[in-house]
């Protein structure tokens, strides 16, 4: 009995309905509906059509009879709906010849069924959605500003009372955001340095000005590429992990638990992250600058005949220390924006696991967007200031 699968998985018989000849003609007009076959969720591929046997001016009594081989709650729904329709049409339905357990099931369903199936909340129109997005963005901006305000309001007192800063947490964040990012930042910066040297060198070569590769690579790397690249990598790597961490902690109510214990989440979670990034990102940028210059040097040496010694001799002449500072000055701002967006999106997660994923995406997109916008603003500012 436990061997062949066929005996275990019951072969389903098609559910059928049939009107029988009236057996009580004359006394009262009856219509007997006979149900046969399997009436289950697995066999009702097509619910059979039943015409109500209403002739002109007559209201027959419908008697249900069963030769069904199986009947479950899903099939009971179909039958319960039919019975409702018949009753709504003023017909009598007689269940006295229907098996009792099945009748009980019909009664249970009938007690609970509602006539109108609620339709899903309809999607808003294009215009409404546009408005929604605009309002959302406005709220987003406002909440970022209030978050920034909170950082200043609560962060500065904390800086003065520096012994209350969780240095252990700060160091752990520095390791995660900085030390572990060295590999990828270094490699990418090196390669971007190479690319710049190739592209610039090809043009400069036409004028015999190969040596100007040093100026080109030096200025672009120190002022723009180094800090920007480091910031974008950190936004993708660290900002997203902040969001995921805080978002998950919100779902598991860990943040509420911290509050309840009397440990302000700002002190233990957010401030160390912001502080760690403010320390880490400038250092990463310096490393990125260095690797970018090295990448340029390799291409200049092997591709355009500017030897290493010439390259590094000329570098201090080509770029001033100011150039380096102009680049590095931007990085603490990047750091604050990345850390704040990461934390803010994480703390705004509500409810489900899918929300964490969504918040992480939003966090990375916003952080990179803001980094580039701020970079552009700095360029304008420097220009106005005459650097």
């Amino acid at each position, binding site marked *: 009995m436990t061997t062949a699968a066929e005996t275990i998985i019951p072969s389903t018989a098609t559910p059928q309905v049939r009107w029988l000849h009236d057996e009580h003609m004359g006394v009262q007009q009856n219509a007997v509906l006979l149900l046969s076959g399997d009436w289950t969720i697995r066999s009702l591929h097509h619910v059979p059509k039943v015409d109500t046997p209403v002739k002109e001016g007559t209201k027959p009594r419908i008697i249900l009879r069963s030769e069904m081989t199986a009947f479950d709650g*899903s099939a009971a729904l179909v039958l319960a709906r039919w019975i409702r329709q018949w009753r709504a049409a003023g017909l009598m339905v007689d269940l006295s010849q229907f098996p009792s*357990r099945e009748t009980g099931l019909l009664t249970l369903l009938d007690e609970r069924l509602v006539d109108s199936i609620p339709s899903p909340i309809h999607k808003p129109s294009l215009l409404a959605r546009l408005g929604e997005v605009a309002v959302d963005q406005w709220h987003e901006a406002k909440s970022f500003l209030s978050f920034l305000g909170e950082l200043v309001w609560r962060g500065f007192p904390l800086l003065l009372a520096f012994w209350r800063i969780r240095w252990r947490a700060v160091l752990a964040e520095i390791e995660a955001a900085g030390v572990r990012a060295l590999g990828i930042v270094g490699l990418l910066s090196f390669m971007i340095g190479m690319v710049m040297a190739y592209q610039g060198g090809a043009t400069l070569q036409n004028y015999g000005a190969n040596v100007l590769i040093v100026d080109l690579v030096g200025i672009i790397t120190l002022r723009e590429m180094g800090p920007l690249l480091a910031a974008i990598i950190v936004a993708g790597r660290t900002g997203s992990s902040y969001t995921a961490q805080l978002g998950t902690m919100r779902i598991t109510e860990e943040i509420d638990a911290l509050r309840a214990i009397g440990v302000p989440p700002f002190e233990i979670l957010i401030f160390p992250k912001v502080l760690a990034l403010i320390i880490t990102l400038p250092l990463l940028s310096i490393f990125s600058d260095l690797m970018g210059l090295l990448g340029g040097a390799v291409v200049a040496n092997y591709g355009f005949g500017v030897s290493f010694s010439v390259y590094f001799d000329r570098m201090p002449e080509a770029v001033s220390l100011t150039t380096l500072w102009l680049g590095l000055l931007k990085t603490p701002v990047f750091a604050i924006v990345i850390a704040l967006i990461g934390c803010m999106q994480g703390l705004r997660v509500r409810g489900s696991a899918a929300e964490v994923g969504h918040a992480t995406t939003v966090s990375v997109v916003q952080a990179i967007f803001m980094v580039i916008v701020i970079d552009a603003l700095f360029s304008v500012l420097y220009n106005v200031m005459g650097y």
Partner: protein
Amino acid sequence: MTAPSLKKTDLPPPIDLVIDAEGIINQFGSNCVHDNLDFKLERGKIVALVGGSGTGKTVLLHTLIMLRQANAGSLKLFGVDTSSASTPLRQSLRERIGVLFQGGALFTSLTVLENVLLPIKEHGHFDPHWLNDLGISKILLAGLPAESAHKLPMELSGGMVKRAALARALALDPELLVLDEPTSGLDPIGAAAFDDLVRTLSDSLGLTVLQVTHDLDSIWRGVDEVAFLGRKKVLAVGTAAELAAREEPELQAYFRGARSQAFWLAAQQEKHHSHAASPSFPSETS
């Protein structure tokens, strides 16, 4: 003229054991949770699986519904030996079991209706025109209002989550309903209503119910039988009153302890109307 009495399946002999587990051994490393455990569940019964913390209730539950492979022992579900069953056969066995997980385990990104329709669309072959109505009927059967169909799980209260999860467990019209702590986290009134609901569904849908529970109300009043886990085995099976009358110290501690006292007294004075010993038990809500 009258139809022959209906059976849920076409199996030749009527099988009265829904679960038949013999010699189950579950081990985590050197830590043996179940040692040569036997468990049988008769069709149509509502049985509670109880025991202290760490006696492996959830592990046993997972073993019985094939979520975990026991280290040794044989498990027959609906009369089919699961160890020799082919993958499609095991799948078809799974479809005959509805499971309500402890936290509900609703898919958080889907609405209640979508949660209920997921197994139906995946495994059922129901008339597509009727699907929404069908899904809503399950939601209504589980005691939720129809309006909750389009809500997300995060918009539901704890009790509603349990009911929504029950609706999903009922989706494929299972023969065996497995509930992992269905009334935990519910207020006493809600818990009693849930017990009543399970009883009603069991009676009319012909369900067999196996539930892990700590709820004394359920154990004493809501179920047909209690299976007590202890000493790495199912130590005893019977009604709570029967188990309370037994000698084993574990059973004494569990069923005659301070919190069970009121139920124990009530059971002893069942015929007399004892006001003092009767804990509040509102059963008229459903």
